């Protein structure tokens, strides 16, 4: 029983990482109708940044904001060129552009950070574990869970209670009308792209202590992020939270029960959900004709 509690906590911490990267992807998709297959690269980069930072001896807790800011900056630059021109293009073109960039980034990171699997040295306070129901659970993962809850609250506050959040939601809803109200959609897109990249980078930074960083992680995370976005349905933070939880739990427990074919089981389960609900679980109803 306590074993399952621990696994549930594991699943929860994994869900937080999925939430962070899934939020970025769904933000960009809902706001600019832009499919970004380079999204996993931000996650991986965040992981490398955190690993370097933690190894350098600087204050450990700054690693995460640093990753957020640096990857956010890259997102901002990419929005300038070449993403910005592609928001209006077809999905096929976006897929190929971002996939090509993902290959480039992957190779650059392999070149810069080596092809080895790296694990960041955790600060004293985060090493070791706590006892939960008689079993040890890594302290670090508790940090991830706490960060996730804090973030979800912060996001809810910003989106629901602030003017900036309202502006964002307006643009997601109807860009043209929002522009007639004086909102600068282009600037909001840029900020959206930067925040999306930053969130993914933050996820990667937090995840480094749990998953380690290695080439190929970007591709794994991309697939998961795409699933998170699509399973939940587009257009709301709530749907991303729900699907991140579902995917996190299915993935963790399939590893527990069917270790050799766990990925196949996870993918199969997600496929079944998509067959049953082709628009995602929480897709809002809208007039289509």
């Amino acid at each position, binding site marked *: 029983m306590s074993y399952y509690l621990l696994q549930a906590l594991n699943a929860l911490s994994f869900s937080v990482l999925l939430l962070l990267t899934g939020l970025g992807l769904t933000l960009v998709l809902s706001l600019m109708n832009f499919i970004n297959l380079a999204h996993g690269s931000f996650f991986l980069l965040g992981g490398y940044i955190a690993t370097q930072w933690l190894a350098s001896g600087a204050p450990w807790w700054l690693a995460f904001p640093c990753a957020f800011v640096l990857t956010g900056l890259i997102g901002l630059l990419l929005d300038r060129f*070449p993403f910005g021109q592609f928001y209006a293009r077809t999905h096929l073109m976006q897929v190929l552009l971002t996939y*090509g960039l993902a290959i480039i980034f992957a*190779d650059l990171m392999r070149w810069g950070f080596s092809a080895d699997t790296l694990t960041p040295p955790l600060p004293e306070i985060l090493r070791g574990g706590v006892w939960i129901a008689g079993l040890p659970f890594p302290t670090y993962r508790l940090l991830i869970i706490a960060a996730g809850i804090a973030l979800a609250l912060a996001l809810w506050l910003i989106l629901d209670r602030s003017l900036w959040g309202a502006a964002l939601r307006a643009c997601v809803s109807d860009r043209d009308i929002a522009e007639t109200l004086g909102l600068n959609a282009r600037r909001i897109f840029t900020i959206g792209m930067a925040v999306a990249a930053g969130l993914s980078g933050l996820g990667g930074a937090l995840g480094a202590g749990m998953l380690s960083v290695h080439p190929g992680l970007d591709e794994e995370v991309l697939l998961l992020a795409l699933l998170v976005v699509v399973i939940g349905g587009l257009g709301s933070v709530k749907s991303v939270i729900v699907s991140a939880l579902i995917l996190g739990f299915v993935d963790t427990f399939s590893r527990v029960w069917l270790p050799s074919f766990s990925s*196949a089981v996870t*993918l199969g389960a997600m*496929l079944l959900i998509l067959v049953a609900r082709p628009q*995602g679980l929480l897709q809002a109803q809208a007039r289509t004709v």
Partner: protein
Amino acid sequence: MKTAPALAHIRTALAAAAALTAYGALADPYLLRLATEILLVGTAVMSLNLVTGQGGLVSLCHGSLFGGAAYAAAMLAQQTGANLAATLAIGIAAGACLAFLVALVSLRSNGLFFLVVTLVAGQLLWEVVFHWREATGGADGLRGFTSAAGRPWWSQPVWLYAWSAAWACASLMLLRRYLRRPAGIALQALRDQPLRMQALGYSASRIRIGAFALSGAIAGGAGALYPFLNLYISPQAVHWSFSATLLIMGVIGGIKTLHGAFAGAAIYLLIQTYLSSYTDRWQLLIGLLFVVTVLFMPDGVARGLRRRGGP
């Protein structure tokens, strides 16, 4: 009496056949293998063009269709020896069945959702292939799967080239015919006006399933011959990154064409072969190729299918 355009087509076809034959007679084994790879992969790209260019559905599973058929053929050869007819048959069957299954699970999906469903479906197959060591060799793939009888005659470079060219030409003719018939016209119409087609009573499901099955059969036939190129098949051929590669080949050649698929495959494979022998950072350059293509050449090199008031 044949019309002028029909005569022009016959001339082109004859010229192509002559060129292919001459190449086969004169080229050395290395060049033959290169051309064979272009023909086989190009056929897979052409099948993708049907679904993506003509059908408007961006698919990330076609690599898995091709690779899945390749594994089926290789495993059959391991069991029963490599008979050409049986190999082609199982490839076509495997490709068509896999495609049919993917079509079923993606029937109600569009846009990004369709993309993800095909990606997931293909990756599901990869997971099975990668982890089922006993049957598929797992990460190592399958090697030397011809039986004690030795290498089959038709897998010699010249013969494999000839059969690959034959399959490529047959597929091209089959697809051209499909696109000129009601089924193909309906596929394109569904891409252009999905609501109108629904309102007219067309079943989008039926159109999609038909197009997918045909696409899978063609990719499967090519996939079946693929392992005999180097007597080796690896899980990489089933991975979704290979599907993405097929997509870029399609776009390089012109996603809305059929014959452009071979141009796209040729350009990509030649660049990849050259680059990987030239530098360690060839993957970065491949990524650059993707980016450059969509920035500067999104319509591809070959001309689009002509429309003269109807196909």
